[in-house]
């Protein structure tokens, strides 16, 4: 690990704090993931990636930069990976899921703010995130109020903060705004990388990202089986690694895992007994290393069979479709694709309810857990109508709101157990 210490020092990390963070993560990973029974062999690749999350992957990013490529970090699935790849750049997701240095974050941000945002600041101010430090550009986006205003505070702390504006309404004007923003983003990427995006390069990168999406869609489809061939925890981990691993290598690893899982399904083998209560999780994203709620659910006699979340199907179910001969045409196709994402920052957001319903049926879920981060107004407000509508249709819903701390795990466990008891009683 001594190679990495030099690299981390170069990146300006606080080694002592960083060591502490890695120790905590290592323990959590061991307790949550490595104690699972009958894991697919294909998970070894993802265990390896996680063990090297701040090591080898960062080295790859630094080597890439040394070759003149740019690293672009972002916090939202609306930032097109295709465009970043088309300037030969590397796209990394910066969303963080650990309660780390919230004291520091709360010096510059309100206490009553989304934990995902506070975590990002906690990592930055605590100097423990090599992804943040290695990014040439950090892309912020005008999504929710919390993020929108927090980027103003983040700007002076990073090398180059670029804020992408997003529409609030899925109208013609909204689509035009998104298209214009993507055009502007292309200009930014070209200027920062010194490369011009060609139609050929963009077409190739669309294929790469589509292939990645197809791989995780394949994984999602296999989870229709009972017994569940893979745990929700492992599927979540894969969806999290989607955001920072090399896309081609990741795609290959997921497809290889899917080959193994398809065999399992044929044999009727799984990680939980057949008939285990099946639950769909819907709502706010769970950024790495946020594994709290799935760990509780899957140790309460239930299995998570799907995620209606940005780190999940909401982020991956659509492909960039259609042919395009020019960069402009392809940007139109890309806009079409991203414009369909039904995050709660949009108003109205009817298609989200449809997707939750569809997914519940597709994965044969007995019920839905609506997951919100504390203080997340868009999802918390949406959770009311989602619960009401689904319950009316006979789909049980349990709404929970939580943060990243361990403080409420006992309370969550009681409620999750009660919800599972309700589902088992039907």
């Amino acid at each position, binding site marked *: 690990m001594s190679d990495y210490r030099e690299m981390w020092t170069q990146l300006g990390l606080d080694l002592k704090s960083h060591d502490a963070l890695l120790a905590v993560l290592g323990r959590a990973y061991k307790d949550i993931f490595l104690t699972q029974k009958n894991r697919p062999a294909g998970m070894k690749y993802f265990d390896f990636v996680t063990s090297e999350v701040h090591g080898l992957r960062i080295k790859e990013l630094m080597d890439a930069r040394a070759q003149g490529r740019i690293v672009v970090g972002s916090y939202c699935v609306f930032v097109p990976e295709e465009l970043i790849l088309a300037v030969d750049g590397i796209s990394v997701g910066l969303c963080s899921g650990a309660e780390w240095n919230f004291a520091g974050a709360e010096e510059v941000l309100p206490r009553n703010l989304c934990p995902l945002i506070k975590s990002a600041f906690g990592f930055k101010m605590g100097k423990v995130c090599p992804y943040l430090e290695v990014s040439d550009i950090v892309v912020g986006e005008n999504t929710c109020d919390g993020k929108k205003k927090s980027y103003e505070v983040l700007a002076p702390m990073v090398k180059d903060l670029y804020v992408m504006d997003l529409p609030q309404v899925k109208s013609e004007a909204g689509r035009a705004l998104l298209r214009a923003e993507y055009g502007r983003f292309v200009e930014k990427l070209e200027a920062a990388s010194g490369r011009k995006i060609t139609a050929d390069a963009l077409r190739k990168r669309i294929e790469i990202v589509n292939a990645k999406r197809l791989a995780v869609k394949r994984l999602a489809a296999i989870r229709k089986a009972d017994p569940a061939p893979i745990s929700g925890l492992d599927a979540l981990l894969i969806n999290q690694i989607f955001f920072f691993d090399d896309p081609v290598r990741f795609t290959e690893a997921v497809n290889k895992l899917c080959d193994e899982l398809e065999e399992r399904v044929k044999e009727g083998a799984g990680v939980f007994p057949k008939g285990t209560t099946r639950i769909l999780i819907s709502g706010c994203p769970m950024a790495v290393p946020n594994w709290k709620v799935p760990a509780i659910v899957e140790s309460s006699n239930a299995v998570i069979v799907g995620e209606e979340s940005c780190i999940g199907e909401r982020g991956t179910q659509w492909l960039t479709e259609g042919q395009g001969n020019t960069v402009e045409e392809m940007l139109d196709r890309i806009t079409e694709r991203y414009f369909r994402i039904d995050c709660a920052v949009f108003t109205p957001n009817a298609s989200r309810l449809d997707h939750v319903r569809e997914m519940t049926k597709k994965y044969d879920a007995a019920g839905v857990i609506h997951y919100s981060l504390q203080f997340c107004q868009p999802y918390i407000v949406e959770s009311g109508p989602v619960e009401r509508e689904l319950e009316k249709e006979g789909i049980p819903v349990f709404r929970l709101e939580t943060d990243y701390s361990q403080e409420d795990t006992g*309370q969550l466990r*009681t*409620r999750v157990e009660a919800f599972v008891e309700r589902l088992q*009683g039907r």
Partner: protein
Amino acid sequence: MRTAGIDIGSRTAKVVVVEGGKIVFAKKSVTSHDLLATMDELLRGVSYDKAVATGYGRHLLRNRLGCGVISEIGAFAIGARALVPSCRTILDIGGQDTKAISLDEAGAMKKFEMNDKCAAGTGRFLEVMATALGYSLEDFAAAALSAARAEKINSMCTVFAESEVISLVAQGARRSDVALGIHGSIVDRSAGLLNRVVVRDDVVFAGGVALNPCVRQLIENRIGLRVVVPEDPQIVGALGAALHGEAGLHEDEQ
């Protein structure tokens, strides 16, 4: 076959033994800081063939006794419905938490809400206030019932409410009026929780605080429905756990 349901709560520990759906034994004791010692003392001399644990210490008990577990929400739903077959809504105010549960026509648990992040409006709150006013718990309820008017308490927090109560009395407020105000605060919190589930009769009021006739009265006034308080409102969870064990469904024994 005797099935025991064990409910170790924050203030009291309960065990109920059922046989053929009937209660054959019930016992309560005070929860000490040592959960396992509490359990040992509670179960001393109690004979049973199978056990199910619920409440705060259920996982610890499962590891110790190898028994099954059920959430206290599930246990209360089963217990209340067994005691009152027409039950559709349950309000449980315990030592440190409150829960509201609504059941469907078949008596299955449907919606639930819990407050276990703050002890204001729970049994603890009542105890602290009774002491601050110099009453025993029984006299506290009686004093509140005898009051002509309620002295409104503004503080939400138990600690600050205690200070407010002392200050009100020092300014000449009648102790009974303050007592009624305190009981009103509890009902405000509970009614808020209840209204988030579907409130339909019959409403069963359980938990230690259900022993308080003033809280009972105020809740009935508030929701406009009669509440049914079982003979021993504190054992509802343990009873539900025992019946769940007897039914032999979804066992989680190790």
